[in-house]
């Protein structure tokens, strides 16, 4: 399985306890599958992950996506800019 760099930000970063971590993910996955894998690593954050979106290499993912080795996978919890 490819190893991706998973990023967390702001309140979610504080809740997970790190800004980034290396995680082995399936070579092809949906956002739901990625979030399920991350919930397994961080069981206390499962509820927080439920409302998150996934971006791979800076693009929001809506369906299945290829995860290459070294991909940047960002967990985007509800934003509050503007």
């Amino acid at each position, binding site marked *: 399985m490819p190893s991706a760099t998973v*990023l967390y*930000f*702001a*309140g979610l970063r*504080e809740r997970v306890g790190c800004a980034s971590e290396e995680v082995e993910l399936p070579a092809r996955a949906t956002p739901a599958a990625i979030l399920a894998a991350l919930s397994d690593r961080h069981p206390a954050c499962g509820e927080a992950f439920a409302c998150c979106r996934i*971006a791979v290499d*800076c*693009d*929001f993912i809506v369906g299945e996506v290829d995860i290459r080795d070294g991909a940047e996978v*960002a967990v*985007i*919890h*509800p*934003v*509050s*800019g*503007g």
Partner: protein
Amino acid sequence: MTSLEAAGAPLRDARIVAGPVPGDSGAGIALASHGAVASFLGIVRDHSKGRAVAGLRYECYRPMAEKVLVQLIAETAGRFDPGMAAAVAHGTGEMVPGQAALSIHVASAHRAAAFDACRHLIERIKHDLPVWKLERYADGTQAWLKGS
């Protein structure tokens, strides 16, 4: 050659800046064919849900934020006016009430498209731009906003 080409391609400027965004009128983005500039400034308020706010910190996933802004401007132009010009900036880091965290300028031939595009951009930015706000309250506590 269309008049648009004669006057140069419309400006599409998207940037994430350190600190508050600089203030300007936006008149500079208008092409000679543009009769209207609609603008929006998002200003840090001194209250939030009844609590006195001393300051804010915006955290940003910068490479994605810049890419998203470019995409949102292109999407907006496609929907409202392919010939529109736009300049969007979002600030990051510490800010105090009265400072501007977001500026949007849209120039178009006519005012309806300029207004509609400007307003569409704000709504999309509020939904998609990977930026998060930490509110620092006057009582010394602080909290990350839960979406907006």
